[in-house]
């Protein structure tokens, strides 16, 4: 795995590997699970007169390529917000990237930002699921909600962050995975996103904080 570290967790009997590249990998299905890619966000901002370079997204895609190659994944499940808004030049860059990975299936559980047309999704070779996608013991849904006891849901949407406070008034905010008994919330994959740290903290939750190339359990 090079110098990127991983943590293994068990969700509803299934082993999942959390990578410090802000993705989860499901070994038995050879599937990568990511959330909140926000492709096209930088071009959308440029469109509105705010000059954000596209290299942000290109770097995100490089990271995704690295994950695909490291884990030898066959499939990617995106739990929502794969695209920031409409089709734009950033999405065309993604289309080029997609050419290299034609054999990999991409499944998108739609989120509140995904506003591409059906024809665009077809062109990009992305299959859209229902609002909730169930695959064996795991379910995927964009927004984390309270769920029934039998299910284990993997979500995104909130861009979770962990606020660490140390001695001598030191504090750091870093992206994290949140694992509870029935829910796993993934950090936002895109670098051009903020962090939400104001979530409820209770004792039953595990936090996997991504700091640099490593992952830490809190």
């Amino acid at each position, binding site marked *: 795995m090079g110098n990127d570290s991983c943590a293994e967790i068990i969700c509803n009997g299934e082993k999942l590997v959390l990578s410090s590249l802000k993705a989860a990998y499901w070994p038995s299905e050879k599937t990568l699970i990511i959330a909140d890619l926000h492709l096209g966000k930088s071009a959308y901002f440029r469109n509105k007169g*705010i000059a954000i*370079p596209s*290299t942000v997204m290109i770097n995100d895609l490089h990271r995704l390529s690295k994950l695909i190659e490291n884990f030898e994944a066959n499939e990617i499940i995106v739990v929502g917000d794969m695209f920031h808004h409409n089709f734009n030049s950033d999405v065309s860059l993604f289309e080029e990237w997609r050419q290299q990975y034609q054999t990999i299936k991409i499944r998108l559980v739609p989120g509140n*930002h995904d506003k591409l047309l059906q024809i665009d999704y077809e062109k990009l070779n992305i299959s859209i699921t229902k609002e909730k996608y169930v695959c064996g013991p795991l379910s995927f849904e964009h927004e984390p909600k309270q769920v029934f006891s039998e299910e284990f849901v993997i979500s995104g949407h909130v861009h979770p962050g962990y606020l660490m406070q140390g*001695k001598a008034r030191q504090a750091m905010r870093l992206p994290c995975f949140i694992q509870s008994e029935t829910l796993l919330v993934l950090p936002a994959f895109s670098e*051009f996103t*903020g962090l939400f740290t104001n979530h409820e903290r209770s004792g039953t939750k595990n936090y996997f904080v991504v*700091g640099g190339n490593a992952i*830490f359990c*809190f």
Partner: protein
Amino acid sequence: MLRHKFNEALNPAAKDIEIKKLAPLFWQQQHHSHIPADHEFLIELIETKDGHHLYMYPFEGRLVHEVMSALVAFRIAKIQPISFSIAMNDYGFELLSDQPIAITKNNLKQILSADNLTADIAHSINAAEMAGRKFRDIAVIAGLVMKNYAGKFKTDKNLQSSSGIIFRIFEQYDPKNLLMRQAYDEVFYHQLEEPRLAAALQRIQKSKIIIKHATGFTPLSVPIKVDSLRQSLSSEELETKIKKMQTESQKTK
């Protein structure tokens, strides 16, 4: 002026009503630590459960202290990997760390020296991320972040972001961005007043340096300690810092 008044406070025949009223505080300061006279420079080292505090009292005004504190923090951080939380007011500044701060009479001369000033200031500005805060104003004026006033219906929800995120993105992906350069220039030229800082350092070099170890906060240090507008500077690796906080949080569980 302040330095002059402090000088007077030591004199029991002081006439000013303010100085008379403040006499108990001055007495306490003198008892626990020291009242710096005109030709002296006071440094207080205080250890509390918060960590290790280093106070310096140059009496040069907030703007100069902002830069001087970052400079001193940067020079100490060069000696050992350490993280600081920095606070300042009009008469002094505080460096707070979780580890003991290696400061002695010998290395003080170097830490407070006026040599190599321009380069060290530039490094400390970067290290203390001062430009990031300056960038907030610039981002709002340039329309990079949307500010909605009360009652205005929000229409551009997809354009929401914060100046912090944009600054981070620019630093990494567009380092020549003019608006970001503007933030650096503003910190450097408007706030810095390098000649004043150099003059202050030279005055400190000439004064008698007094290092006091105190067991509790002194009257001079309290107002700085409670200042919540802080900046930080660190020369520790990110992963070491996280590991430290991880062990601390496990202790409290």
